[in-house]
């Protein structure tokens, strides 16, 4: 596939400019648009974590909100009952969500795509029903949990949206950095191999089930940590924020984005930002949104920014080939 590429050197200034724009944006936006950007940022964080599962490993997960919910509830319960500072709970939320993912995914990871889809939908519904039914007297039923403390960084209490903007988009930046390293790692390469053809991957000596499970658990625990940030921002959480529908929107953001990190962030912008931009249409705004989703998919079936094909340093191969050839003659 032909693809125009920026020269490697031009990429760094481009990223720097983007970061500059992101950093200065809140200075020109009003309160409302900052709040929208914060919610898009949370969406982007979740979509990036889903991208590891759906985009990289090719596991059809339409129940991502379940792991997000586990993280948010673990944070809320531990914070309101034991007064542990919210940001300290990030690892706990991530671990809890990851553990849940591990337990759930182990028996089902071998299922074929569409069957996995309905199973993950089932999981998100089971989690929501459990939360509503106040499981263990911990989740507060439909009321949810309120009075979650604001996070604190270096003694600064994060309260205002503009502070959350930097916190959450900072987390997005960090995520992009870590996940692009993952993508280049051995596991990342194994995952893209599995996505293309899992039989062939198995044949190459990749432990397919283990790699898939790893991606699933990693994505889920990342979503759990996003849940912590969500709980800290809202200060009230209730089962209504973690439904099948929320999972569907995340799914749409990843597919719409196309699977590259930049694409997924853009996808999150479209899925979580467009309904806000369409506010002037009042009752018709979701109608327009649905139409936009269809039109965008039809115009760009492969997503807005699909990941470029991997580039390998093939120089050494030809060198080796030549060497081998020399030996034979």
């Amino acid at each position, binding site marked *: 596939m032909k693809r125009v590429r920026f020269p490697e050197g031009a990429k760094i200034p481009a990223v720097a400019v983007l970061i500059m724009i992101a950093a200065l944006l809140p200075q020109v936006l009003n309160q409302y648009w900052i709040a929208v950007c914060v919610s898009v940022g949370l969406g982007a964080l979740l979509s990036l974590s889903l991208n590891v599962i759906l985009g990289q490993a090719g596991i059809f997960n339409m129940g991502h909100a379940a792991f997000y919910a586990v993280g948010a509830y673990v944070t809320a319960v531990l914070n309101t009952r034991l007064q542990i500072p919210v940001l300290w709970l990030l690892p706990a939320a991530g671990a809890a969500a990851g553990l849940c993912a591990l337990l759930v995914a182990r028996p089902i990871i071998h299922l074929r795509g569409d069957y996995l889809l309905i199973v993950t939908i089932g999981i998100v519904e089971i989690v929501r029903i459990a939360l509503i039914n106040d499981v263990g007297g911990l989740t507060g039923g439909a009321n949810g949990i309120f009075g979650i403390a604001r996070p604190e960084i270096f003694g600064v209490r994060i309260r205002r949206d503009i502070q959350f903007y930097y916190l959450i988009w900072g987390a997005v930046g960090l995520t992009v950095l870590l996940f692009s390293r993952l993508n280049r790692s051995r596991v990342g390469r194994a995952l893209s191999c599995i996505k293309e053809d899992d039989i062939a991957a198995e044949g190459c000596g990749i432990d397919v089930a283990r790699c898939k499970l790893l991606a699933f658990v990693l994505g889920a625990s990342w979503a759990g940590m996003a849940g912590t940030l969500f709980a800290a921002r809202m200060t009230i959480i209730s089962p209504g924020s973690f439904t099948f529908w929320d999972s569907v929107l995340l799914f749409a953001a990843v597919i719409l984005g196309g699977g590259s990190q930049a694409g997924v962030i853009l996808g999150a912008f479209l899925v979580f930002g467009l309904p806000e*931009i369409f506010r002037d249409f009042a009752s018709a705004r979701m109608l327009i949104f649905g139409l936009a989703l269809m039109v965008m998919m039809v115009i760009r079936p492969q997503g807005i920014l699909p990941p470029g094909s991997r580039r390998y340093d093939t120089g050494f191969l030809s060198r080796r080939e030549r060497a081998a050839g020399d030996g034979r003659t």
Partner: protein
Amino acid sequence: MFQSTTGAGRRLILKKILMSVFVAAALCMLANPAVAGTVRIGLMCPLTGGWASEGQDMRRIISLLADEANKTGGVKGSRIELVVEDDGGDPRTAALAAQKLAAAGVVAVIGTYGSAVTEASQNILDEAGILQIATGSTSVRLTEKGLPYFFRTCPRDDEQGLAAARVIQGLGHKNIAVLHDNSSYSRGLADETRALLDKAKLNIVFFDALTPMERDYSAILTRLRASSPDMVFFTGYYPEAGLLLRQKREMGWNVPMLGCDADNNPDLVKIAGTAAAAGFMFISPPVPADLSTDRGKAFLDAYRAAYKEMPQSVWAVLAGDAFNVLVEALRHAGADSAAAAAYLKTGIGGYAGMTGTFSFDAKGDRVGDLYRLYEVNPEGVFRAISE
């Protein structure tokens, strides 16, 4: 990956998409500041989502009242401008709607319907120093937080629990089945009532939740029947209440059923069918058709003239009254949230609204018992039978 469009072509399409998104965003971000000589009032209501009909009624009623208020001089010579935002019946959308209203420079916000939805907007509006008057959010804890600018025109769930327990005891039933729908409101009312009935030594033979938005409740009804109650108290919304009544009749089971204020909607009779709905009782603030005040009657006439039908829900009428008391406060205290809030708490006493007279306590709750007991008569009309 799947299509062999050339890179340049793809970039062009991408550019076009991005450009149009940015242009749209930029257009929307040019928030037009309030023109001098106008007072902006925000309305936050569910225009989309499962409660869309409530929100659309709220918008109709308040735009009607706003036109009327502008004809009679607006607020101290300033025109009232209504800014309507959709909360989708969803807490997160509501948080953004509240931000948008705050950014639009409204002096006060009316709304909204669901308690959890209102709750998501409370802190945002409070931090922005904007007066808020909720209209259908009955959850107790909303006014227990000590927010100085928060009011509501609807009663609280604990009042309704008291009214429900009083009615059930008054009817003399001994074995009561309580059915809720696991929503914040419904569960709260069910718990409240169960505690009061326990105290009164009545038998709770059944306590469980149905799943709202389904169509077939025959399994639950069969199980309810097996617990042989003297009366079923259902604390959910009218669509489910209507279906329960209908399917109960189809089963040939004639147990009396009591509902709550969320059943106060004539669609209940439409859904259940007149024959099945007859005899159903519910406790509620007065239905729109029962507005007995002069203000209320005049409003009903105006509404019918404008929209060719009757308003459906009492909650939307309570939104109309929120607008009325707000305009009254603004007219006395000027377009200032703090002054208007102070006026609502101290000065408004005895103001005649459409649903009765108004005064607010220090928490921002409306004072006075609004609840009455209603029965569906054989013609399918809601008729007040007590209190």
